[in-house]
């Protein structure tokens, strides 16, 4: 289970990074498409926390 959890966090980090980039791109292309409904700060916070958790998990336990 520990290994699965670590994989999930790593994959979640990639997905959250993709979401931030895609949302930012969409917002630039069509102003208001995201920010009208959702504050991107709420995505940046879990993305940051996720990144920190991945960093503090010992490398050997990640995979």
């Amino acid at each position, binding site marked *: 289970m520990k290994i*699965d959890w670590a*994989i*999930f966090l790593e*994959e*979640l980090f*990639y*997905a959250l990074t*993709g*979401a931030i980039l*895609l*949302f930012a791109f*969409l917002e630039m292309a*069509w*102003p*208001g*498409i*995201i*920010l*009208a*409904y*959702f504050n991107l700060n709420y995505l940046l916070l879990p993305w940051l926390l996720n990144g920190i958790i991945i960093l503090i998990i010992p490398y050997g336990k990640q995979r």
Partner: protein
Amino acid sequence: MDKKIFKIRLCLWLTLAAVIGCFIYLKIVPGGKISYKIKAGEPNYFIGKLTPAERVKTDGDNVVVKGDPVYFSLNPPRRFENAKVTVKFKNETDFPVVELGVLNDKVAWNYDLKPLENKIIDQLSLVWPVVYGADGSRLIQREKKYNSVEEFLKNLPPKDEIAVYDYDLKTEFKLADYKPSAEVKTINCGFRGAFQFYTYLKNEDLNYIFDFKDLNLNKDDDSVKIKVYGPTGLVYEKDIDDDKNDERQAIVKISDLPEGIYRINFIANDDIVTQSLTSRQSKFSLINKIWLTDVGGRILHTDSREVSAQTINPGSLGQIRVGDEVIDLNETYKQFSLLTDKRPTTVELPKNDIIVSGDGVFAFSTDAIIDPKINNIDRNLDVSQEKINYILTGYQAAKQTDGWQTAEAEFDLTQAYQEKGKFQFLISIPGFKAENENNGQMAIKEIHIELNGTSLIEKIKKIFKMVL
């Protein structure tokens, strides 16, 4: 790739795709219809907060309006053709009229105003007989003479017995003893910014020469637009581009126009000062508002019931004589008003650079006054004193629920001005000034906007039609 990793990755990215799909759906509004609703004290991305801050006060979910006018913005996700705006409010002021408008022209600050409440009509419709028209319009009569609006329109009584509100009553306006003038006159008054005036034609060309200068106080484009409206609507339109010259001229010459009254709309920003107007037309009445930068000791004549004056120039402060009374213009950026004791009356401006406004027209001689406007039911009209016997209106009274009034107004967004995707709306309570605290207050509880436009299917069909 590990099967487990693939499954997790697939789930996460599909979730992201679904979320993006939802956002795109909300952005393009494929059905062509969407609505937004806010509590007045809790604005969102689509409906902005009520401003300016000095005229509003948030009271829980409600907003208390302390002065006229207040504004809010609408930021739709894409283009829509029309908007139905519903406002839930409570008008506890001494002022009978509440209107809602959308900004149509930023240069002339022209709003398309629609009624939310008119207490005068609401009260009269309870005591006077009311008949209805096929289009829902109402005729309120002092004594019942007509059985329908259509019957009234076919056989109109004298114009001075009629008052209208939110109704475009087409009446013929002819001056029986008018004769074209042979003399060419030049008016040098320095009209700053936009202005509009009435003129009259009979077997003559419409001919006006506008000489104006560009103050270039701001770096914006200072193009000018001139529109001429006749008895049947717009008859002429001219754009004068900003060629960066300080002195510019526009000539409007139209032949073969039928006899009647014409409205000329000079649309310019405040950087433009019309130094002189040259014409053969003898009738010249400025409509509602004029900013005079070079009065030259002239006296204005007006048929307005209320005259207001304002200046932004401390050197222009002073006393303005209106008939036998005086407006003490003792503060800049503040509008001072006075009810006229008789009509027409005179307005004597002691200095230049004063904005004069009223609910009628302004001319430089009583002979030049020409006003085809039918009496409008507003706070300055005394129905009994003016001997009004018929009120024709398209206005529908606001609905009452839980002590709140709910009124709606529809706007054509294709004609409205949009800046950075936003439309600007105004809520107006004419006469309600923030500095007079004893005039009561108006509270706004809710604003609901329903937007209608082309659906995705209709748009695709249109594109196919254009291509094939």
